[in-house]
């Protein structure tokens, strides 16, 4: 399905001297979807984003937007816009002028560009702050301004480089709801780089997990979480136990592990109360650490202490074979 403003990467590669940061990526970002590029630091996700934005030269391969190769165009002519990690607001310009910056560069007259800037400020609910300087805003407010500034160019694809990492946890959750709402309203593609799996699961229509310069797995959030393809994805996405059974690697979701009187013998090592559930870690006789996420009521009906002997079990249908 190649309709609308699909963004396609074709054998996209980035080299820094001898090291390869991004190795031959092939992927299609569907128009109007919220995609999270997820991975540990140094996996190449930021380089990929910066290549799409045009701030990093493409070593090899192509970036196609709506069928046209944009990989050699300057950032402003690609139909993409970037929101920077630390927002990169111009400290000497007030909020309105920051938002109107790209229109000013195009030579749009003052009345028109300020009018358009005010519309976008209304969209991100920042109308009252138009006259302020960035230094007079909180982190969350600065982010809204950065968002408005990126959106004023009417991009087909918005690129967000770890947009929530500078915010405190409470604000992060509020802002991510807002990002999702905006994406739905605007209907444009958002590509969001993050290293937080909870952020990716909460936001993404599609998650692209990267590791070591390549895509490990890509798919809808639920599919990636339920059926991780490799041990890396299972570990990185969290909530999974990776075990070696009969010479093959398998993943078992932590919430599928049951603690009782039958199954694999193990010793409880830690017990962590998490409110709605209890995280219990146990060591099997082969030395594997297994995490079991038990509903609170179930745990307290037969509480365990570190050092207690117990048995771990799960139904075979919950056992998920990993490819690597």
């Amino acid at each position, binding site marked *: 399905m190649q309709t609308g403003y699909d963004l396609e990467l074709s054998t996209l590669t980035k080299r820094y001297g001898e090291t390869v940061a991004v190795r031959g990526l092939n992927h299609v970002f569907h128009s109007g979807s919220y995609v999270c590029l997820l991975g540990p630091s140094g996996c190449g996700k930021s380089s990929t984003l910066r290549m799409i934005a045009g701030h990093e030269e493409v070593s090899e391969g192509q970036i196609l937007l709506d069928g046209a190769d944009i990989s050699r165009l300057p950032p402003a*002519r690609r139909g993409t816009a970037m929101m*920077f990690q630390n927002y990169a*607001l*111009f400290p000497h310009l007030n909020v309105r002028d920051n938002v109107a910056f790209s229109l000013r*560069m195009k030579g749009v007259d003052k009345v028109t560009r300020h009018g358009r800037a005010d519309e976008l400020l209304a969209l991100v609910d920042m109308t009252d702050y138009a006259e302020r300087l960035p230094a007079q805003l909180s982190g969350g407010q600065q982010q809204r301004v950065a968002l408005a500034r990126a959106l004023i160019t009417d991009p087909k694809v918005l690129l967000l480089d770890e947009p929530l990492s500078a915010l405190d946890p409470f604000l992060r959750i509020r802002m991510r709801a807002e990002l999702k709402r905006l994406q739905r309203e605007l209907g444009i593609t958002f590509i969001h780089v993050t290293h937080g799996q909870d952020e990716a699961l909460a936001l993404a229509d599609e998650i692209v997990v990267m590791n070591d310069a390549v895509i490990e797995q890509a798919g809808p959030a639920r599919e990636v979480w339920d059926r991780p393809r490799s041990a890396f994805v299972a570990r990185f996405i969290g909530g999974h136990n990776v075990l070696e059974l009969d010479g093959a690697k398998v993943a078992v979701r932590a919430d599928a592990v049951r603690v009782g009187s039958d199954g694999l013998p193990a010793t409880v090592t830690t017990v962590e109360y998490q409110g709605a559930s209890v995280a219990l870690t146990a060591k099997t006789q082969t030395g594997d650490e297994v995490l079991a996420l038990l509903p609170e009521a179930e745990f307290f009906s037969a509480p365990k202490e570190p050092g207690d002997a117990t048995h771990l079990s799960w139904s075979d249908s919950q056992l998920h074979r990993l490819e690597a």
Partner: protein
Amino acid sequence: MTRTLVGWLQAAPLALILLCFLAAPIVMIVIVSFWGATEYSIYPAFQFDNYEFLFGSEVVWRVFGATFRYAAITWALTLVIGFAVAYFLAFHVRSTTWQIALFLLCTIPFWTSNIIRMISWIPFLGRNGIANKTLIDWGLIDAPLEWLLYSDFSVILAFVHLYTLFMVVPIFNTMMRIDKSLIEAAYDGGASGLQTLWHVIIPLTKPGIMIGTIFVVTLVMGDFITVRFMSGSQRANVGRLISNDIGLLQYPSAAATAVVLLCTVLIMIAILLRFVNIRKEL
């Protein structure tokens, strides 16, 4: 109580030094500027003769004019050169090692004294100097250029040579503090190189430009030795006016000129500071 006492004691050494070596001499100069003088003596008094003479003399006005002109031209040239050098160091040299190495290279001329750096221009610019000889050899001119040495040209050349670094250092310093992602953000917003320079880099470099401006303007306004050497004593500025008065033992007149010069420079700095807030740079 003891806390305030300790506080005063801690502030005392610097206050004493400033009092003895800055405030007291200025007060003395102000006092002496009201004294009177004859050809062979000076006498304490409170009269405005010195100031009346200063403001009434057309020569003095012209000399002040010449001093402003030197300051303005030197400022413009050091600003352009200093900004270019700082821009190159801050934005084009990628590795920190090279930045430091090139920056130190700029300071090497400062390992010798001002006077030596100044005088070394003389054999280069003189009538039979290297510059004239080379130009004649190349056939570009028939006779030696007279305006190369002992002229406004040579004075300003020496000023620019001596003081450009005072412009480079503060500008480089502010430029290094500009977040590189701002340049990318400008590029992302469709700004060309020139637009980025004009709308982002220059506004953010203003405090550094202002500090450099204060350095250069005060140095040029107060200079007398460069003007004397490089003009072959054919040009005058306020510093030379004062130095001549001192040579003639006309201390009250010299003091009055110094007071006027000091006030002029302070007014100029006050005006400059109204434009840019440099406090956040210090």
